């Protein structure tokens, strides 16, 4: 999840509780295995586009449409060849097309929920503290890895060790050692410091923690959930051939 602050205002009509989004993710995962036809995939993507428009993620909508469109056209084009390597490519493209709704889910989960909201939501569904704290630290350190990798790459350059695909293929174990050892060394130190900082801020306090946002279910959450469930039932019937 990106570091920049995601501006959320719970009083907005398009603010959906993270817990509802978690349920939506689960339903979407089941639907992925229900959908069999190309029309079903397109319907699924269309629904994700509606959801993303509702959440106000217009850039993601554009990317999702491009991704699906290109893959769909490619599938149509490749379905004329049924033998040779074209068929193998066809299978690949088809699998990627099947996962197009997942891209929409990915955008929804990463671009519209901040890390702290997610952790808060998971704490509300009674996940043990050990998991939520670990998850919070994991999310916080995602961007830091990139910075550390840049530093490691620079120091490798100083020692005249190029870090690219060719050098990785030439000596994979050695490159793995060169990259992983400094990274792990650094993060062991960081873990100790961060733990001390967190203890000072009272993370070991038992009991329920508060939140900056007012987290509760609102009217729009129930409506959203109802629409998602209705849509899932509709798609199931559509795929089973009940409708049309």
């Amino acid at each position, binding site marked *: 999840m990106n570091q920049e602050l995601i501006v959320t205002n719970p009083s907005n009509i398009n603010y959906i509780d993270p817990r509802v989004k*978690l349920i939506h*993710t689960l339903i*979407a*995962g089941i639907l*992925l295995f229900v959908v*069999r*036809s*190309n029309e079903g995939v397109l319907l699924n993507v269309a629904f994700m586009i509606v959801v993303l428009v509702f959440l106000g993620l217009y850039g993601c909508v554009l990317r999702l449409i491009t991704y699906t469109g290109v893959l769909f056209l490619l599938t149509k084009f490749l*379905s004329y060849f*049924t*033998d040779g390597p074209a*068929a*193998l*490519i*066809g*299978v*690949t493209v*088809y*699998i990627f097309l*099947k*996962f197009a*709704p*997942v*891209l929409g*889910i*990915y955008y929804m*989960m990463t671009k519209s929920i901040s890390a702290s909201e*997610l952790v808060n939501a*998971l704490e509300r569904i009674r996940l043990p503290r*050990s*998991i939520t*704290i*670990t*998850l*919070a*630290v*994991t*999310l*916080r*350190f*995602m961007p830091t*890895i990139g910075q550390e990798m840049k530093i490691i790459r620079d120091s490798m350059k100083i020692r005249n060790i190029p870090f690219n695909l060719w050098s990785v293929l030439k000596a994979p*174990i050695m490159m*793995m*050692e060169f990259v*992983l*050892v400094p990274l*792990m*060394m650094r*993060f*062991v130190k*960081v*873990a*100790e410091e*961060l*733990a001390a900082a*967190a203890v000072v801020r009272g*993370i*070991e306090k*038992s009991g329920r923690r508060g939140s900056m946002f007012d987290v509760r279910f609102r009217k729009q959450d129930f409506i959203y959930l109802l629409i998602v469930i209705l849509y899932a039932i509709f798609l199931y019937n559509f795929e089973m051939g009940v409708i049309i």
Partner: protein
Amino acid sequence: MESNQQLNKKLGIKDFVLMGIFSAIIFALATVLMIITGVTPAVYLLYPAIFALICSPIFMLVAVKVQKFGAFLIPSVVMGILFGLMGAQTLIITLIVFGIIAELIANSRKYNDYNRIAIAYVVLMLGFYAGSIAPIYVFTDWYIKQATGGVAGTDMTYLNSLIEAAKSWLGAMSVITCVITAWLGTVIGKRILKKHFEKAGLV
């Protein structure tokens, strides 16, 4: 968290932070590898094997540093949740189930036996394999059904033989490769820990 009589037996905040940071590294590695190997299913079958080879020093370090119940389970659950949020729900189930098995194996000697840790790591990577490869087979089946149903009368023998190969020896090979690289990874991981971390006094 609450300090009972056995303080050093329970996971402290330091362990959580350590596991969290290293889960971040593992997750980043997994994502980068998925993008690179996702070019074709043939290469993608080897993705868990490559992943098992690379991330073994990280798991070994976590196991050696934490040495308490949860050193395998908590990172695997966190990774399962993260992958699940990104849409790979099969990984949640397999990572949690195999994480519990790995945890029980490693914890049976209180994380003191190197062989147990290695076996636990291999088991966990098998769970990762099951979760990340299973959807491919499901979707290939559907593709064949659709292709044979849609374009009637065309010659499907080539594609069928290809898929059969992928199902029989390529699939079996990828499982065996995954086990071998995971085991090889633990050997390398042990070496790296000996060479760098024991010398620096971090373990």
